[in-house]
């Protein structure tokens, strides 16, 4: 038989970035970063460090380098994000999501998106780090938000937003945010916050 299987397990775009990843920090490279973001957890199989340089006059991300301990889609998604974010205004870069990355890659299997697409979170962490280093603490969003789920990188702010968008149970919260879908250690804290936000925003309607 000469039948060939599908050309690859993921999309061609993922393959391209997996084979030729862009903006990886080289061992002998001196990259004077203005800020850095570190996210993920090696125990869950994915960890990422992302360094950025900022053009202070234009307020843009001028250059990016990264390293990751992760699978093919972690490598490809970080590579494509580093290309996407380069040259972007800090505020726009901050708004990049895993959905944007997935779209650029031409799709990823569901189970891959929330454990391997960490680049957007690393970028937000780096931008927050930049503002903190500049003393612009009013701009730091992460300071208000705390990461509750280390594996997927979900913050208390995201939990609150999910509750506002209609999540009422742990399962619904997981549907919205994928929180606790890796190691699950954050479940007790998440349940506590879920109750807190439900009470905060909806205690009236619950009583009715």
């Amino acid at each position, binding site marked *: 038989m000469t039948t060939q299987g599908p050309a690859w397990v993921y999309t061609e775009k993922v393959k391209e970035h997996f084979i030729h990843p862009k903006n990886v920090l*080289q061992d002998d490279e001196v990259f004077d970063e203005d800020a850095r973001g*570190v996210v993920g957890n090696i*125990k*869950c199989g994915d*960890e990422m*460090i992302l360094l950025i340089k900022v053009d202070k006059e234009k307020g843009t991300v001028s250059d990016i380098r990264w390293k990751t*301990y*992760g699978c093919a889609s972690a*490598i490809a998604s970080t590579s494509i994000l580093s290309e996407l974010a380069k040259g972007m205004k800090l505020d726009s870069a901050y708004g990049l999501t895993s959905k944007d990355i997935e779209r650029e890659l031409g799709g990823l299997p569901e189970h891959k998106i929330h454990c391997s697409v960490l680049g957007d979170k690393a970028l937000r962490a780096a931008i927050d780090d930049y503002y903190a280093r500049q003393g612009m603490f009013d701009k730091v969003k992460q300071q208000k938000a705390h990461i509750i789920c280390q594996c997927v990188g979900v913050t208390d702010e995201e939990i609150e937003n999910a509750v506002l968008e209609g999540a009422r149970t742990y399962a619904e919260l997981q549907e919205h945010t994928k929180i606790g879908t890796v*190691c699950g250690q954050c479940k007790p804290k998440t349940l506590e916050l879920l109750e807190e936000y439900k009470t905060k925003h909806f205690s009236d309607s619950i009583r009715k």
Partner: protein
Amino acid sequence: MAERKVYMDHNATTPLHPEVKKTLLQAMEAYGNPSSMHSFGREAKALVENAREMIASFIGAKPEELIFVGSGSEANNTVLNTISCPSHGCECPVNRKREIITTKIEHPCVLETAACLAQKGEEVKYIGVDKYGKIDLDQLEHAISDATAVVSVMAANNEVGTIQDMKRISEIVHQKGALFHTDAVQLVGKLPMNVDDLKIDYLSFSGHKIYGPKGVGALYVKKGVPFCPFIRGGHQERGMRAGTENTLGIIGLGKAVEMRKIEMKAEHDRLLGLKNLLRAGIEKRIPDVSFNGHPIDSLPGTLNASFMGAEGEAILLYLDLAGIAVSTGSACASGSLDPSHVLLAIGLEAEQAHGSIRMSMGRDNTREDIDYVVDNLLETISRVRKMSSAYMHK
């Protein structure tokens, strides 16, 4: 396209032996139903029974103690469900003991069946293993009680290759009055196995791990031990497994076993030599690597290695681009969220398990393959580590 193809995933499945292929082509003509009384049926029946005799003699069983099934997984499911069937209102003449003891490194078809039975109220205990994957015999001895019906221990582990001390386990189990089941899917056809010498009560194995067809397996059930059919509704296999026989699969399995009889010993020594070369090549050229499994009591062609700071799925897919087929214990490749339960059970940290690669060799692998794999592993590991945030300090 890679210039060369090297298949090193024989524990997942094997290619058909050329002799099995020939036999299968001939067997396609024998399309009769073995249950039919006419000449077509009688011919098919004779071929099935020839295969049964061949396989039975290979493992030291009587032909009537062998049941053909659809897979190793079906064989394992059948045994565990036999033990628990009285709980579900079944009135077949099995003994009244219900407790199942198994290990933490079994194949999912045993672990998930056991977990399912536990949910239905059965008692299930799990025996741990040491850092080489050998089960804790003291723990086993203490765990078995008067309530224990069966102890199910895999003969050789699919991921790390560790072979258990079957004779000792069988003694302990029988001294305590329980029955002994072994999932021998990875062992039969690679090392000698005699159910009579080892006093095994149930043994499962499969065709496609020994150069036979997929979709066929065999279950040895010692004469007189409890048995309850898993698939009902027919007189086939003496009423022990309903469904028209997979004649093609059974004939192919018989031929595969016949070839194992001839080739097993020489292939064992050759594969062991290749494994030693592979291991030495990796150790010599790639830093920060550790090997998993027992250094001696191990399947001849199986080598499992953990590469520090390199994630398994990335390694697997870069090797695939070079035409090399291996497998990994990393969660990222399986679609599950946890790394291999076997590697965690032998005490590996999650990150070591995520960075593990299993190379399992077979009859087509050569010395040239070893060189090609070591060269490509070296390139791949350094490529992954250069990108790795977990290898930056090096």
